[in-house]
């Protein structure tokens, strides 16, 4: 029996999702391990090899924030896909975190860093993938 066109739907979906993943890794720093492009075990640049730093900005003070464990999932998402929306979600969750500084919160700065390794020595070095400045929006 000749295959019908709709028999190919699953593989068409697989290829379409994989092409989207390849594009996103190149234009939006999606981790190669993520997004269904079959890039797992191909690069050290997975979400596990990235980290996030967050800063509260009040007038002249820029203070690093500790990201609490309940925000681990949001942080993982941002590490895998450092998009504006994921940064915004984390910044919103961090906005009420107390700091010893005075004055109104102006913005939350979110940085996503990735570790790369020297091709010869394997020595690690850090590089910033993306940085976001999310202004505080009062409800």
């Amino acid at each position, binding site marked *: 029996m000749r295959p019908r066109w709709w028999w190919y739907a699953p*593989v068409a979906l697989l290829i379409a999702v994989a092409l989207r993943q390849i594009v996103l890794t190149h234009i939006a720093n999606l981790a190669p391990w993520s997004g269904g492009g*079959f890039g797992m*075990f191909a690069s050290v640049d997975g979400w596990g090899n990235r980290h996030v730093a967050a800063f509260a900005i009040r007038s002249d003070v820029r203070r690093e924030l500790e990201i609490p464990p309940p925000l681990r999932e949001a942080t993982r998402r941002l590490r895998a896909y450092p998009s504006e929306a994921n940064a915004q979600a984390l910044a919103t969750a961090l906005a009420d975190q107390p700091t010893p500084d005075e004055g109104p919160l102006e913005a939350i700065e979110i940085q996503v860093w990735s*570790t790369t*390794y020297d091709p010869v020595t394997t020595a690690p070095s850090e590089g910033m993938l993306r940085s976001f400045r999310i202004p505080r929006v009062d409800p």
Partner: protein
Amino acid sequence: MSTPDATAPPTAPAARRPPAWLEDLDATDLSLRLTLLTLLLRPVGSPGIRVAILALATFGLTVPSRLRHPALWATLAALTSIRVLLDWSLADNHAYLLAYWCLAITLALLARDTGACLALNARLLIGWAFALAVLWKLVLSPDYLDGRFFRVTLLTDERFADFTRLAGGLATDELGALRAFVRGDLSIDAGAPGAFPERLLAVARLATFWTVGVEAAVAVAWLSPLGRGLSFARDVLLLAFCVTTYAVATIAGFGWLLLSMGIAQCDPHRGRTRVGYLAAFGVVLAYDGLPFMRWGLDWLR
């Protein structure tokens, strides 16, 4: 004295024919059962989705008359897809493949020729998944072919720890020092290339080229038209990949899924190959449940 009947169809010598029970195993049923078993062995998704998938997989396995019911598989396809959509950037590659496969099973059960539709999907999904994996390793990744990926991963990924100690011949403190170095916690002379033990570098090189080599062979074999090119070797290559890879990389769920898919396209006359798939499923199960690497380390000690 009787002579052979010249009009009778030729029969294969008895010794070369697989036993009848092997020929009776239906590839589609086996594939569906193994897929449900994979869902039971590695429950996936958030708690709500997980409970629903476990219930459906148990139902499908214990009520044979419902094993081929399209509604069962359409629901599983929907649940596995929702699981991926809810967390698309964190879902593993095999979460995606599982969703595509459940969709393929649903479509096959709605098709007039279920076996042909499922076999086609098995070949294409496995072939393309491996082709994309090879594309990443050979072309898109900046740190795979030069060995960096395995040099780092063998040290930092806890799932490889026992293998790294066993194959790399590393004592616990040596592994700890190298780990600290690649994590940037230690500024030592290990920065010089010679500080990485030669045996560990050789293991990383072997892992690098074996992995991409066998994946490329699987991709070519599974995407070759039937009866042409490397297609004759597709089962052997996939079985070799699963039996070697999942001994080291403890992601049994991916192995079980590939084997569940692979068995669906087994030629009905190749009963032994189907048994090969079942045996490989058992081998990956054993890798998952038994600490072979730890036993190896204890034996060496």
